[in-house]
């Protein structure tokens, strides 16, 4: 579980995060949504420890980040997995080497043991025949799957995903969403996803935090987002005609 308490972050005069308080539970897919410039990326990077907050606290399973020394912070990072927007695979390494990388860096496993673990996670993300390929030789969807495999290979407690669906076709995007959700439940990971994709919100948004101008403007589940009358949320989520109609149908059905 990750608890965020009154988080503030500024860059010079630009006050980006303005007192965000929320909780991300384990075994659930938690989504951060909001318009461009709302502070989503800064929030996610703060959760990752890449930005130091000006004020407020982040607790990882009741451990206060700001009270940790460098050694503990490094150990905490090894409990984190991250899926980057562009996958961020090491392009000089094969798929297998990419996935094996965290194991080589942070464990004392023998090669055979590592190989076995890599095979398991690659099978889990439905990639069984790409071990020896370079990232440039596989599709965008496959790269995302490799990135997920690399993020989970060291059995992380926390999984962060930055726009995991960007650049993917709708069908592959749904496959990636479902994969992240299944892995979250299966490994009981605290997953936080930064997304613009409203399909993801509807499909896997067990907890949604909506940011507006650096504030938490709303939070709830994908069920609740249909019913909310929060104007900021409805303007953002139901900005397309299709989603407006979906919502209308849902509400009519309920009534």
């Amino acid at each position, binding site marked *: 579980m990750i608890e965020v308490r009154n988080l503030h972050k500024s860059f010079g005069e630009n006050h980006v995060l303005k007192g965000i308080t929320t909780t991300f539970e384990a075994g659930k897919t938690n989504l951060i949504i909001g318009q461009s410039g709302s502070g989503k990326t800064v929030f996610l990077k703060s959760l990752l420890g*890449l930005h130091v907050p000006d004020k407020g606290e982040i607790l990882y399973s009741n451990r206060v980040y700001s009270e940790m020394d460098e050694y503990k912070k490094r150990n905490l990072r090894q409990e984190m997995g*991250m899926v980057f927007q562009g996958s*961020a695979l090491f392009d*000089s390494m094969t798929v297998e080497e990419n996935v094996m990388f*965290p194991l*080589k860096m*942070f464990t004392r496993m023998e090669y055979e043991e590592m190989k076995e673990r890599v095979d398991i996670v690659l099978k889990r993300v439905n990639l069984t025949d790409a071990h020896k390929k370079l990232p440039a030789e596989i599709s965008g969807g496959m790269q995302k799957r490799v990135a997920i495999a690399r993020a989970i290979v060291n059995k992380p407690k926390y999984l*962060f995903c930055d726009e995991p669906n960007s650049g993917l076709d709708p069908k592959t995007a749904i496959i990636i969403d479902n994969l992240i959700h299944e892995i979250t439940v299966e490994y009981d990971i605290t997953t936080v996803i930064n997304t613009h994709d409203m399909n993801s919100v509807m499909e896997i948004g067990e907890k949604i935090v909506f940011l507006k101008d650096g504030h938490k403007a709303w939070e709830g589940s994908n069920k609740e987002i249909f019913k909310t009358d929060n104007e900021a949320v409805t303007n953002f989520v139901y900005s397309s005609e299709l989603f407006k109609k979906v919502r209308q149908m849902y509400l009519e059905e309920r009534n």
Partner: protein
Amino acid sequence: MQYLENFGKYFLMLREVFSRPTKWPIMKNLILKEIDDLIYGSLGIIIFISFFIGGVVAIQTALNIESPFIPKYLVGFTTRQSVILEFAPTFISIIMAGKVGSYITSSIGTMRVTEQIDALEVMGVNAVNFLIFPKIIALLLYPFVIAISMYLGILGGWMAAVTGGYTTSAEFIKGLQIDFQPFHVVYAFTKTMAFAFILATIPSFYGFYMKGGALEVGKASTTAFVWTSVVIIIVNYLLTQMLLG
């Protein structure tokens, strides 16, 4: 002000390069890869340039000493002095700033743009040590490259001078041996080591701290080449003054 900031940032980066080392089995492979990319991959161009520039130095010298009062062995002497003192260590380092330096900046810069460096940092890897330390170690072999350059430069000079009929082989070899000061070789390799460190770290700095996209990677490579060359020239001047002045 920006220069001052970069200056400080560069030294902070150097401190980070030598802290929190990467596990040796991984580092060993990284070093071998860098030796292949930076040293072995540069040999072809260095062999080619050294041989022909050595030849040109010999021909130019011969053509400029037509006076009968100047001995012909001066062609060998001048070629030796030019190649060992300046051409091999300094001129080749400027060429390497273009070849190796731009490769280092663009490869690290591309890793920055594609979030690969962020991925390392999120995992808790000391990205500066992981990326830059192997380059510094690989370039410890740079003096061997310069030694090859010296040898081939002189060989090229000898071939050009003898086959062109500018001097005899015996005269040229006499010139190579006359008034030879071993300290000149020490001086050349001392500055080669300094240039190797500059070649590994300045392009890495510009790649690691670049911001933006593909266009900025190109700009960072150009900036890295300019600054690496400038620093090599300044350090060359300072070391020459200190060691020979």
